């Protein structure tokens, strides 16, 4: 049986035919093993099924009850999860050490008593409750010296990690992805590198079990197609996202965020293909808003844009791995970045909504505070802006504006969009003065609007510049809606961040996009 069960563990599903009470298992054309038909040992005519384990004191306690019931002719099928010799005083105990029956019967507690009528369950009770057992078994008394009540213990079939194992083994999970058999001599981690699946850092090998556990993080059908991922325009299922989320190191509860991020990057306005292909630095940055950010422990505080938080790190990475593996977008291939930026490994953080004096990015973009969302931005790296001396909003705005003018190129206007990640100590200056977010944005837009004549080629001895036809115009640095502010960061430090975007913004390139996160 060992050989075949190894094959089953491997997910190589042999053809099986049921015939009476045997499986005939045919594997690569040869009959290699007989298996008992699933449930063949089940007394299908039993009026009662009882599932127990020796490791449960309540199960040990009820042993004389079961023996008495059997002795008085009760048609009883007992399944034992951990020791087929238990209960010794009961005959024909079924061995459920592989937990198949427990899984099929959805046992959560032992002992569980299930009353059967015409082959189907009519009712069940868990633990030892004398009055319940008397009623179920239609008895007047059962081992009178026992206490009236004892709670049961957890079923082995619901121990942590076990339900997914059992679902994979006995359930009807049908994953569609091709199975890649890794040779005995291969190192699992190295094998992932060699197959080109990695962004350069180690990935978690995407075993079936890990993928099934990952998929438990969403209610969505693994076969659901989210869209076609550029550059190869390949259909991307929830299952493919889950595989890449495993590799990125995500926990299952992050999966809905990753799925939403993938959906968002496929919105036409985001222009994922162009963003991948550009020689410019940008890659997708993910900002998470709403309750899920707190629920999964994302970092919106100190070092929010840095390393160290699993959710921040792996959600952004999973999105990039989907583009790499499903879309086929790789550096040197369609990814033509001249330099790229470290955020192309991963760039994801949550907005600090709870401490903010302003509406969140998501609310500003039309969502309700109770909705969880991702917003994607075609982002470069982080440009720091220090201002430790401003104490009024006017001065701080002038400070921010001076740095904003350098985005892309000091002479460029209406090119990149931008996100300002405003830290708490800077936001407090606006809060104390009663400024709204919109007032700050309007002020910054005004302060970064310049005459086109100053931006002409040759001005300042610099050949770069804006075309001649804008010479007599007043040019805003950013297009309307192109300047965005979110709050994040630690409580100490008057250092905010400017995150410039791809030079090709708006209809010409990429616009920020948002998507609600659906569990």
């Amino acid at each position, binding site marked *: 049986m060992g050989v075949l069960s190894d094959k089953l563990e491997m997910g190589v599903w042999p053809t099986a035919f049921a015939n009476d009470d045997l499986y005939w298992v045919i594997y690569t054309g040869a009959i290699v093993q007989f298996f008992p038909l699933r449930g063949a040992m089940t007394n299908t005519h039993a009026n009662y099924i009882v599932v127990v384990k020796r490791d449960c004191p309540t199960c040990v306690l009820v042993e004389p009850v079961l023996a008495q019931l059997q002795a008085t002719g009760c048609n009883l099928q007992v399944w034992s999860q951990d020791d087929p010799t238990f209960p010794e005083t009961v005959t024909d105990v079924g061995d459920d050490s592989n937990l198949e029956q427990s899984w099929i019967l959805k046992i959560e507690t032992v002992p569980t008593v299930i009353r059967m009528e015409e082959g189907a369950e009519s009712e069940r009770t868990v633990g030892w409750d004398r009055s319940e057992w008397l009623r179920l078994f239609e008895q007047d008394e059962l081992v009178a010296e026992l206490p009236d009540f004892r709670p049961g213990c957890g079923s082995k079939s619901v121990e942590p990690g076990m339900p997914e194992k059992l679902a994979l083994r006995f359930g009807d999970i049908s994953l569609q992805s*091709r199975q890649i058999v890794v040779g005995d001599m291969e190192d699992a981690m190295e094998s992932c590198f060699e197959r080109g699946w990695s962004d350069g850092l180690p990935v978690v090998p995407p075993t079936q079990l890990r993928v099934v556990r990952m998929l438990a993080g969403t209610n969505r059908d693994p076969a659901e197609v989210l869209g076609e991922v550029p550059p190869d325009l390949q259909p991307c299922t929830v299952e493919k996202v889950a595989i890449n989320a495993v590799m990125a190191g995500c926990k299952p509860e992050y999966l809905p965020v990753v799925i939403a991020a993938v959906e968002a990057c496929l919105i036409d306005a985001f222009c994922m293909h162009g963003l991948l292909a550009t020689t410019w630095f940008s890659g997708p940055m993910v900002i998470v808003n709403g309750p899920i950010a707190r629920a999964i422990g994302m970092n919106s505080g100190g070092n929010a844009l840095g390393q160290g938080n699993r959710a921040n790190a792996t959600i952004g990475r999973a999105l990039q791995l989907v583009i790499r593996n499903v879309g086929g977008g790789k550096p040197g291939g369609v990814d033509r970045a001249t330099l790229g930026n470290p955020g192309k490994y991963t760039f994801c953080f949550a907005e600090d909504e709870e401490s903010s004096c302003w509406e969140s990015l998501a609310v500003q973009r039309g969502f309700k505070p109770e909705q969880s969302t991702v917003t994607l931005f075609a982002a470069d790296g982080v440009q720091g802006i220090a201002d430790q001396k401003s104490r009024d909003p006017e001065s701080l705005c002038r400070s921010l504006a001076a740095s904003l003018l350098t985005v892309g190129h000091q002479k460029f206007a209406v090119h990149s969009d931008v996100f300002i990640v405003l830290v708490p100590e800077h936001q407090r200056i606006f809060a104390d003065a009663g400024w709204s977010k919109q007032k700050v944005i309007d002020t910054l837009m005004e302060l970064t609007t310049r005459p086109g004549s100053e931006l002409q080629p040759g001005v300042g001895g610099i050949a770069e510049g804006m075309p001649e036809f804008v010479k007599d115009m007043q040019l805003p640095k950013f297009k309307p809606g192109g300047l965005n502010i979110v709050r994040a960061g630690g409580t100490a430090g008057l250092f905010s961040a400017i995150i410039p975007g791809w030079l090709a913004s708006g209809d010409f390139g990429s616009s920020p996009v948002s998507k609600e996160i659906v569990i």
Partner: protein
Amino acid sequence: MTEVFLDPTAELSAASKALLPRLATLEGKTIGLLDINKPRGDVLLDRLEQLFAAEGVSVRRYAKPTMTRVAPLETKQQIAMECDAVVEALAD
């Protein structure tokens, strides 16, 4: 134990690991000839060197210290830096 992974890609390429791209032409290329230090490997490699030379292909010779072990890292890196392709003589 043998492991099975689920393919994270769009499954456009073969499930087996891809070989490095083959050379489309030998013109202007440098070919390494690696002797694993087994008897008569040099006979094969000498002949190959003659044939490559006749085609105007430049050749560099390398040898493993012993056939019993994999090539030292330095040798592999040297070949990778100096050559476009390598022919390894398994000999005997």
